[in-house]
């Protein structure tokens, strides 16, 4: 059972000049298979929390434990390796590599993992089919709509078979049809493959579909609601 645990996590930006407390003692436990939204007003610390539990950023104090690994104790390169194996990211701005096709973007992460060519090829195809892009595999990001690019990003995040997918405002740039589409795909993957999804979001459409909603206010957990 892969679990993310944070104990008394704080994150202070600019500790020497004008300190900004982005996280102010967050205790959380996110179980495998959750479909969780982290919500809250701007500046409440959603993105920071996501970065910290994804190992993109280190907490100022407190412990972060991802699937039994203490990421505080890891060197930068170890952490990069750890992310590569266990965590998939989906970004608000998609962040696909513009010169690569959809398929190549998905394969790229597996290339970093040194997976054999055939496996990369098959898995990329399988994932792009799963996100409904079977006919767009050889298109570059510039030839895809925002929703399609975000679906490529999800396929890319899934490629290394991560334990967790962390998505930072994944629907912020999408219209409602694309958003619904994307949420369907994520919900299905969550259900069928038991992949943990954690979003930070403002988007009511996302919040409505989440099974657990953690609300942050001023860097603290203000409410934690688990729905049926």
């Amino acid at each position, binding site marked *: 059972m892969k679990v993310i645990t944070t104990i008394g996590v704080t994150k202070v930006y600019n500790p020497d000049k004008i300190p900004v407390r982005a996280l102010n003692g967050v205790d959380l436990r996110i179980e495998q298979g959750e479909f969780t939204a982290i919500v809250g007003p701007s500046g409440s610390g959603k993105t920071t929390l996501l970065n910290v539990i994804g190992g993109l950023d280190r907490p100022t104090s407190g412990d972060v434990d991802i699937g039994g690994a203490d990421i505080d104790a890891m060197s930068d390169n170890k952490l990069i390796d750890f992310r590569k194996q266990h965590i*998939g*990211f989906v970004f608000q701005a998609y*962040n696909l590599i513009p010169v690569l096709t959809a398929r190549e973007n998905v394969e790229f*992460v597996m290339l*970093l993992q040194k997976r054999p060519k055939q496996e990369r090829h098959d898995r990329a195809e399988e994932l792009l089919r799963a996100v409904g892009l079977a006919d767009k595999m050889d298109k570059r990001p510039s030839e895809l709509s925002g929703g399609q690019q975000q679906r490529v990003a999800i396929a890319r995040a899934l490629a290394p078979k991560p334990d967790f997918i962390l998505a930072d405002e994944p629907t912020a740039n999408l219209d409602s049809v694309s958003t619904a589409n994307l949420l369907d795909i994520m919900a299905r993957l969550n259900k069928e493959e038991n992949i943990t999804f954690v979003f930070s979001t403002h988007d009511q459409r996302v919040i409505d579909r989440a099974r657990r909603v953690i609300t942050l206010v001023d860097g603290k957990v203000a409410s934690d609601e688990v729905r049926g």
Partner: protein
Amino acid sequence: MVVISAVVIGIWAAISLSGFATGMIKSYVNNAVQNIISHIQVHQPEFLEEYDVEYYLPDAPAVEQVIRSEPGVKAVSVRSLSSAMISSAKGARGVRIKGIVPEDEAQVNALNENVKEGEYLSAEGKNAILVSVDLAKKLNVKVRSKVVLTFQGLDGEITAAAFRIVGLFDTGNNPFDEAYVFVRREDLNRLLEPTDGHKYGVAPGALAHEIALMVDDVRSVDAVAARLREKLPGLDVETYRQLSPDLDLYEGQMTSISILYLTIILLALVFGIINTMLMAVLERIKELGMLMAIGMNKFRVFIMIVFETILLGLVAMPIGLLLGYLTISYVQSHGIDLSTYANALEDYGLSAVIYFEIEPVVYWQVAVGVFLTAILASIYPAWKAIKLRPVEALHKI
């Protein structure tokens, strides 16, 4: 694109500049060798120090024979020399007279081609003289004017004789032009040799101070000189580099000058590449952040930037080399006409038209230099890239 253009222009400039410098130096050296010094000269050891008529070559006809029979020798000119005063109605100047056999001299240097007015020396007529255009101007004389040469004979007596100018020459080397006049050797010898010439051990008409020769292949100069030294003990056999150490210096400098140009240009290039690659890194901060977020480690990011830079260099290199090669080839055959500055150039013994030339090794130096430069210049941007923290990079706009 910017990096590629910068590298292309840099390579082109390095090759062209090096070609220009080499061309200038070769022009200077060739000018000096062909018009003035020739490849090898043979003298009596004391002659070059004292420049006195009494240090003539003992048994010049025999020495000439030895030289002419030496393989690799293309042309030989036997000369009598004397310091003299040349005077016209306007004034007088000190000069050196070269007594030459016109046909032989024409084989050794380009004097006959350098006659700009009048004619080259011929077998006809007595006491004909060639002076340079510059000297003629200073003496206010023209073709067919008479000048008087005053000099010391072998017996120490001062002799004077009137010569008629048959032609005016211009070698393109002003210091030389003003210092030398040419007459026929038989005329000069008749005046130098006293009537009782036998006393000096010189057969009538055989007096000679200098034998100049050209070899078939300039690279064999040292070998030919060494063989002649063996066969002509007691005489000074010197190559153009020994006769004119400045030529040796210039020739030696050719390589260092092209390396110097290359270094300066590559230094400029380093900063150009660093600058553009840094821009490329900053432009792609988000992409790099994403790559690191999804698991590209620092070493790979570093290597990626270094490879990208090298690749740009490798794309640019052949284009630059080709452009440089084309420039050199064009200017090698057509030349750059600097006639506007001809006077200044000729004061330094340079021709007004410079033909680019380049040692083939320069292309290699440039290629290797650019390759190393690209590696060197990629390090800082690559280091900058791995210092990025993914979380910050991702949120940069």
